């Protein structure tokens, strides 16, 4: 991976291809040209983030920003969030939870587990596109620590 040219990679864990495409489109519209690595299920995403041995050493030296959907076919995003925040190699990577669920308990739980941002996908597309573009602007300015 070319860390020097594009230091920050956006890991997008989103099972709905349509959503993934819309999110990517709108992030690009915000002028963010960082690499976006999409995963359509939790298993593949975990394999990428923690390596085949599950230790998390695979993420050493990466600068990652994780976009996480909670409703995944093979596991819930909460499980992934918990793993990310309890692994010494990945716990400093910002996690943005982007999901349809706006249940107060779910939101609370995600922040308790260490989520950095929680965004509910608005059904209204204007709001949705707007939210993603603002998120993209946020990505453009935010400083991401390198994982150890």
């Amino acid at each position, binding site marked *: 991976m070319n860390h020097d040219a594009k230091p920050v990679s956006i890991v997008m864990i989103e099972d*709905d291809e349509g959503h993934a495409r*819309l999110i990517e489109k709108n992030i690009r519209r915000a002028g963010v040209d960082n690499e976006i690595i999409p995963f359509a299920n939790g298993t593949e995403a975990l394999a990428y983030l923690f390596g085949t041995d599950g230790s998390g050493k695979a993420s050493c030296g990466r600068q990652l920003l994780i976009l996480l959907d909670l409703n995944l076919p093979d596991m819930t995003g909460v499980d992934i969030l918990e793993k990310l925040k309890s692994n010494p190699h990945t716990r400093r990577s910002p996690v943005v939870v982007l999901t*349809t669920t706006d*249940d107060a308990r779910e939101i609370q739980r995600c922040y308790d587990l260490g989520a950095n941002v929680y965004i509910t996908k608005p059904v209204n597309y*204007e709001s949705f596109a707007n939210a993603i573009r603002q998120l993209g602007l946020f990505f453009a300015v935010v400083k991401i620590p390198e994982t150890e």
Partner: protein
Amino acid sequence: MPVSRIAFVRSTVLFLLLGLAALLAIVGAMFWLVGQTQTYSDTVTNARQQRAALIDLRGVAQDAETGQRGYLLTGNEDYLKPYLDAEAKLPAQLERVRQLWAGEAQAQGPLERLSTILTGKMSELRRTIDLDHAGRHDEAIAVVKTGLGRNLMDDARDLFDQLIGVAELRVSETVERQRLNISYLRWITLASALAILLFMGGSVWTVLLYTRQLIRAEAEVTALNAGLEERVRERTADLARANEEIQRFAYIVTHDLRAPLVNIMGFTSELETSLTAIKAYIDATDAAGEEPVARQARIAAKEDLPEAIGFIRSSTVKMDGLINAILKLSREGRRTLKPERIELEPLLRSAAANLHHQAMEAGGEIAIEVSAPPLVSDRLALEHIFGNLLDNAVKYHQPGRPMKVRVRASGQGGRRIAVEVQDNGRGIAAQDQERVFDLFRRSGAQDQRGEGIGLAHVRVILRNLGGEITLKSELGQGTTFTVSLPRDLRGFTGAI
């Protein structure tokens, strides 16, 4: 042996009656025996008197003889005194004996003879004494020596002995009979006491048997009751679980429906954006004299595509509304209830006050009567329920008729409270009366804004509170909704 209630009453009464009969028999026997004893006692007394009188009479006769002999021996008048006393007493004593023996037919003969003998003896004594008084002492002794007096006295003694024997026999016979009597009495008392004990014992035994049966039956009922309560608890838990499952299902379904909807809306927007570019290109080209293919593309871009996109948009907006409504319902079902003490009157008044403006517009009033005690429930839920019902009442008033809404809250037994919301509005047709509680279903002319979720929502909330809602309505006349609530939400185990 099971004892039926009738058999129990019958046998108890029978035993008591038998016991009573035994008691009566004892009392009767006692009376009879006491009467007998009295008779015997009288007989004995009588016989003793008879005997005593005879002995006295004999004594008197002997005294007379003794006095005569003493006088004749000594010639001293002093010795004559016993004779004189006896002579004076004898008739009376004889009369007394006659009286005492008057009732005895078989004694009359000996008594008559005794009387004659005694009369003879007395006249013999008198003759000798008279002779002696006249100085004819030897003649008097000669009379004595004839032995006539002694023979008379011997005969009299025999008769005395005979009669005294009769009296003594009677005494001893009667005493013997009395002893027998007493022993009868003892036996009868003993037998009756045994009978009473037996009947009482039987009665007590039946009572014990019956009581034991009652206790066993009661224990069975208690056990059944406990089982029933346990079953009710299980069923309630099952229902609560099923309810929770349905709500979770609704929640998941609505969430999962939302995801594709986001795509539909998103890509429709993308489509629209693309269409704008196409439209700009077509507008830039000259419409005159273009090929049929190009004309069709122009029509598609300028009319057909915008129309199709418009329908997709409006449908997705509508669908979003429906999904939101379901989501709201399922969220209400999942909301944690906060039981607190609530006075209904201020709550209802504030719900009515929120509709004051609309009520004035409808030219009507909302009257509130509360006779129900305060209840423990969720304030937010109650506010929502009554707000919605009052809103409906005002919204669906019959135009051209002054609106009248009455809210009445009253206790319903000890544990529930009923609140009636009665209006004189346009009413709900009979076939719609159950439908109005269904989601997205509305009744009558669709001339008011609404999505058809209000009453469905009210019913869901009420179920969570352990309450229920029913309605009575006549089309064109008005509707009465009756809300029934538990007085204490905490006692309702179905609450989630």
